[in-house]
């Protein structure tokens, strides 16, 4: 099983994602945004960074890259697609996930560990995680504030995968780092095969760096890539 890790101009977490996936036993290759095929990959990751500088709107220009056509087909075929941070923003812009991400409430970039609670395990990102479990993950974004139009909000029920919370799992405004709607840190599409999250699981696969709680999320994704189990 092999993941395609897509690189746009301005992407910067691609090597970290490849390193993390490989350290968990999966195969992963970089795919340039001008490529028109995913070369038989079993899963797709859109990693973090600043595709096209985040100019205009985060993710706005990236969604027109040639590689997004096969990514869309791949997603529509029900195969696993995960967007991390900037990748999440691109998936929203591309309409593969509901809602969008705007500037953080305090208009400051946030780089620090946050706690998130697993809300659901209905997605390729969370299927191996137990609902209610609290994960400590690095958050690293300026536009991490999830928002959705009122008509979209109702449709989110059941598809929120992670929410910001306190160290023991309590969800409350005080624990919301960036103003996200209902503390949402990750959502999926209704089918669960496309998911996006703001925190960086690939930065949390080694206790030496402070946390290994990202492993359960990446392992969910890796498990989703095994065709028999889809």
């Amino acid at each position, binding site marked *: 099983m092999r993941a395609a890790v897509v690189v746009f101009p301005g992407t910067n977490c691609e090597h970290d994602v490849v390193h993390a996936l490989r350290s968990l036993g999966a195969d992963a290759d970089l795919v340039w945004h001008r490529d028109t095929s995913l070369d038989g990959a079993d899963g797709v990751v859109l990693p973090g960074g600043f595709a096209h500088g985040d100019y*205009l709107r985060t993710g706005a220009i990236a969604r027109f890259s040639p590689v997004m056509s096969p990514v869309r087909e791949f997603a529509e075929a029900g195969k696993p697609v995960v967007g991390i941070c900037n990748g999440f923003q691109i998936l929203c812009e591309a309409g593969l996930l509901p809602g969008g991400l*705007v*500037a953080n409430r*305090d*208009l400051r970039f946030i780089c620090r560990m946050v706690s998130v609670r697993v809300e659901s395990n209905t997605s390729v990102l969370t299927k191996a995680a137990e609902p209610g479990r609290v994960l400590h993950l690095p958050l690293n974004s300026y536009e991490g504030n999830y928002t959705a*139009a009122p008509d979209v909000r109702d449709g989110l029920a059941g598809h929120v995968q992670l929410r910001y919370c306190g160290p023991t799992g309590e969800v409350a405004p005080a624990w919301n780092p960036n*103003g996200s709607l209902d503390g949402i840190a990750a959502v999926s599409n209704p089918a669960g095969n496309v998911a996006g999250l703001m925190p960086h699981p690939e930065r949390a696969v080694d206790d030496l760096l402070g946390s290994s709680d990202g492993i359960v999320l990446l392992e969910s994704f890796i498990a989703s890539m095994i065709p028999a189990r889809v």
Partner: protein
Amino acid sequence: MRIRVEIDRRPGLSDPQGTTVHRALRNLGYDEVEAVHFGKSIVLEIDGDDADTAVARVREMCERLLANPVMEDFIILVEDGS
């Protein structure tokens, strides 16, 4: 031709820049300000002399790229039709 596009966030969606500017203006004593909405203004210099065609094309640019239809509305203004 110079065409300006104003892109505003849809009402009901969170607008942290607007909220922050509003708070800052209040702190400076501008109590008459009741709300602030933060958006973008993009000026396009277009080669061509038919304003209708240009506006139609700019509308398409907005729908495809410049604005995000699930979050933003836009207005097109012809600033200089020559």
